């Protein structure tokens, strides 16, 4: 049975000066699907995220979300429709306690609407959300200044902030970069769990091993163009992909 795609990107393109960052990329994402996006450095992955979430306006092409054209809309409108993202370089409020970082999305009109017109007790909700993400409430981690937390926590804080928006589509931009093996090991099951519960996810990642374990489908970008798409096995056997990764064959366990 083929379900209506939640996100449809049609021939999207963007250049910065003479650099063609993204060139005519098209793809679809089905409801509840887990899509991985990989590619060498500078292949346009983050620009693609910025194009979908409205932080960068495309030169050409379209982004269709649930049948609605959201091309070039303001980032807060796109976020309000249920597309949440994390940032490659975490963007947090370091001089605030961790749970106050989560209160910001809880103040958004989207959350108010989903909660039936009222915000409720935000502090409590924020700490609950963080507790679920492994910020031990009992040891007061949610109350610590964000600036004093280790990097792995910051990445998870950024993820929690995206989830606090109660998104229908989550875009993770290199969530694992800079995380230790054990931090990855504790975060990955959380992301898998959200996907199983019906959240559609696009995940950009350099750590192919972890990515291939969880995604349904992989898309490979190189110099702004889509060079392959399919299951992890199919993709890594494509000639172009091997060439793009300069012969570095990837073992899939």
């Amino acid at each position, binding site marked *: 049975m083929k379900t209506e795609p939640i996100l449809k990107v049609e021939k999207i393109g963007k250049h910065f000066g003479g650099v063609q960052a993204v060139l005519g990329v098209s793809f679809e994402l089905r409801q509840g699907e887990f899509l991985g996006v990989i590619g060498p450095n500078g292949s346009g992955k983050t620009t693609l995220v910025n194009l979908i979430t409205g932080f960068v306006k495309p030169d050409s092409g379209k982004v269709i979300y649930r049948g609605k054209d959201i091309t070039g809309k303001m980032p*807060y409108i796109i*976020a*309000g429709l249920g597309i949440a993202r994390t940032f490659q370089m975490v963007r947090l409020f370091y001089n605030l306690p961790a749970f106050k970082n989560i209160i910001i999305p809880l103040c958004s009109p989207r959350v108010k609407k989903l909660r039936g017109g009222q915000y409720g007790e935000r502090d409590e909700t924020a700490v609950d959300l963080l507790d679920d993400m492994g910020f031990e409430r009992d040891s007061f981690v949610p109350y610590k200044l964000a600036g004093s937390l280790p990097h792995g926590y910051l990445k998870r804080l950024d993820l929690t902030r995206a989830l606090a928006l109660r998104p229908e589509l989550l875009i993770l931009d290199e969530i694992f970069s800079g995380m230790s093996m054990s931090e990855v090991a504790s975060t990955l099951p959380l992301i898998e769990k959200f996907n199983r519960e019906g959240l559609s996810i696009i995940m950009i990642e350099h750590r192919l091993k972890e990515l291939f374990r969880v995604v349904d489908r992989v898309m490979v970008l190189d110099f702004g163009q889509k060079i392959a798409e399919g299951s992890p096995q199919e993709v890594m056997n494509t000639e172009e992909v091997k060439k793009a990764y300069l012969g570095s064959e990837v073992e899939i366990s």
Partner: protein
Amino acid sequence: MAEAGLRYRKERLDRGIKARSDTIYVISSYREMLYLVLPRVLPVIGLLVLPLVLRGYWGKVLVYACMFGLLALSWDFLAACGMFSLGQALFFGVGSFFAGALNHYLHWPPILTLPIATLAGGVFCAALLAPVVRLKGIYFAMITLVVPLLFTRLVVATGVWGGSHGLSNLAPFTNEWIPIYLAVVAMLVVLFGFRRIMNEDYGLVLGAIRDDDRAVMSAGINIYWRKIQALFIAAVVGCFAGAFMTHQYQFVGPSVFALDYSILPLTAAALGGAGTFAGAVLGSLALVPLSEAMRALGGLRITFYCIVLIICIIGLPEGIFHFIQRKYQQFERLTEIG
């Protein structure tokens, strides 16, 4: 002092009371209660008693200081929301002219012109600056710097609202107690109001816009609408000061858009300690009387005023309020260096 052979250094310890915590208050004794309450209550009582002591000329200086305090608060509020303004004169001038015109052409008394000029001026200024809320940092500052100067020229060149002569013989306040207490109470209300706003979730979002506007946008919040709201709040405060001074001086002219009203509040806030609101008030209450006391120096007044400012800013870059707050919340003791 230290004997030969023994060396000491100052050790600073934070007081072990959760005076600065957000939600948890540990109050177990009268001493701790007083510790928390006195620094808020004493200045308030002092400001409320001051008008009884200061009469005549110095009473007017107090009113003027309060109005500058309001402008400095308005500047500090915008700065807390990430909008660095160099144009508090716009708010001051718009409020002044709204009140002046209503009084001069329609003969409305201050009790009507004050609230109307305050609110209408707030809406006008917020609407006027709404198109530039997308600008950040120096670009926003430049626009706000230029707009009031544009209005000066506009009034002088077109001759509207009295042109360069201004509108004079406006209705004064009927009773000498009204303006002085109105000024003091207004400043206190705005001071504690702003501090409350910034401690609420509403202010949390405004402060977050200053820190990282893209992160706030990705949380689904329309930052431009929030910034316009913040502009309105700041403009209301500035317009009130303008409308008030119009009736206090019984005159309004193009000089209300002068650069002084933009720069001096900024200086007051910087001197007092930006980002705390209390610092803005403290700075104004220090600078305005200082400037008046120096009138005896004649032509060299501004020179000395500037020298005092330079010394303060070099000596206390964090601002008076931050300094006092830090000292208040710390023990200091000499410890031996072994």
